């Protein structure tokens, strides 16, 4: 390995991500009717939470949107900076950018870093199978099943996670945290010390260590 190759490998931004091959680079439209490329603009190097829904859904979708709204409040400082929410429609024929804008505004979720996406059915179907495919035609053909799951992606780390949208907020937040960028040594030491203080307080108070993680 020569010096040029070594430097190329070291500074390659996302060496392990399959990129377009996995995510596709389909051109979608957000609630502001802006054209975005799925991988290049939305996934590349970012951490995001993706769900599928449709505006006229009267089942699980409104509840999932509400859960995401609560999560947004907790993660507000990161939203739009290093963390994004993408809500993609499964009914692109009905859900135009204007319909998505209306949906977002009426539910007070037209927020920075949260995009509602529509596009060609062909592309959305491909993305849905790539992100939520379970290798079983009966489950994969069931559109409602995918409205109750959240896919958590960190492209920079090339890591994936999945969360049940009806799990507790703490559970979902923990799953999002699992996909967070790796922390520096100093940060980890600081966190460990803070956790140790809690453990010691618990042991002193109760006589044993309680689950301080939850």
């Amino acid at each position, binding site marked *: 390995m020569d010096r040029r190759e070594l430097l190329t490998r070291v500074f390659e931004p996302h060496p392990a991500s399959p990129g377009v091959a996995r995510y596709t680079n389909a051109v979608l439209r957000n609630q502001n009717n802006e054209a975005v490329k799925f991988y290049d603009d939305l996934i590349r190097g970012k951490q995001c939470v993706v769900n599928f829904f449709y505006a006229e859904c009267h089942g699980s979708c409104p509840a999932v949107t509400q859960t995401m709204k609560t999560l947004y409040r907790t993660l507000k400082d990161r939203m739009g900076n290093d963390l994004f929410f993408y809500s993609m429609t499964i009914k692109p024929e009905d859900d135009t950018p204007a319909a998505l804008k209306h949906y977002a505004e009426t539910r007070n979720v037209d927020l920075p870093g949260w995009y509602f996406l529509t596009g060609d059915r*062909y592309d959305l179907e491909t993305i849905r199978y790539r992100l939520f*495919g379970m*290798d079983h*035609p009966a489950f994969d053909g*069931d*559109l409602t099943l995918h409205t109750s799951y959240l896919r958590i992606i960190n492209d920079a780390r090339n890591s994936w996670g999945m969360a049940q949208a009806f799990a507790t907020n703490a559970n979902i937040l923990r799953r999002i945290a699992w996909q967070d960028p790796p922390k520096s040594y100093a940060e980890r030491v600081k966190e460990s010390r803070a956790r140790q203080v809690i453990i010691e307080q618990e042991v002193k108070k109760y006589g044993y260590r309680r689950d301080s993680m939850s």
Partner: protein
Amino acid sequence: MKITAIISLALMLLWATATASAQEKRPPLPSPRPTPAGARDFGQEQQNCPCQIIGTWKAQVSKTEARLYEFDGAGVVKVLKVSGADKPREIATAKYEFVVEPMSMEETAAPVQKAPEKQIAFTAAGNNRIFGRTNATMKIVSYDDSSMTCQIPGMKEPVRWTRVDTDRYFIVLAARQNEFYDNSGSAFPMVIKLAEGIPQIDAAGTYSDHGKSTFGKVPPDIYKQYLGEARGDSEVILRLEINSQQYARAWKIVQEWQRRARENALLYRPPDGIMSLNNLVLLRAVTETLNLCENDFDLYKLDYNYPRDWITDAYAPEFVPFYFFKELKRRNEARHIEYTKFQELVPLSHLASR
């Protein structure tokens, strides 16, 4: 030594007889169970029959007189009068608009959604009048692939229009066994449009590319092999005549899957996904679209819902298409076009190059 050999031979014979009798006693495999027609399973996408107005429609005015309504894609309709053996004569031209009434909140939230109301608004061009008026609105009461019942203002009884198809359309479902290393084989649908005696064929699915299982657009030299008579029990071929709307929908699905294979956008991709599942999704979509507007064929519901769907329960995905087509053939034997008749209908010597 001799005694030992005799004893072992006797033991072998005894074992062989016992095995054979055990096999005879084994209960036979369960026979195929009929699929009761029922509502879609929970969560399955509900698809409504699309109302496709573009084309030519015929309305019988009296015993000797009929009218042809030719709707084009640019919003213009021509009305032609047909009486006896005379050549159709244009009697009116109008602009038309296809209006779909928006559904209420309650209607969209209903578990079983009914199709929204549809009507056609006509504005006659020039001095011509359509239905005796300059502006008229015709409410579509019911429709399927081949007919439409409309309520015309001023007329007591609803009028039935029938679609006029000048071309003929076919679908051929072909599957083979014992072709690949795992004993599975090719399986794909072919959609055929016969326009002015020239067949145009499109096919997508799993086929053999020099003995290797391949998924995508089936080349003509491959699908031509399946336009002949089935080769014994290891091959199943079902030939059905369909109408223009069934063809259009099936053709669209075939085109979409050809595109998916071309653009590397298959829904299931190895190593993460099972390749043969793509073919199952394609075959299911193509066959289900035939019955989207009316129960035209006796279909088998390939939905992994055991015990109704016994095929996916009994066979691995790569073998499912063969048994699926076999079951469809059994159910639609009366509609199956025999090879000799198919040869007469579809002149394969005039295959259109695609």
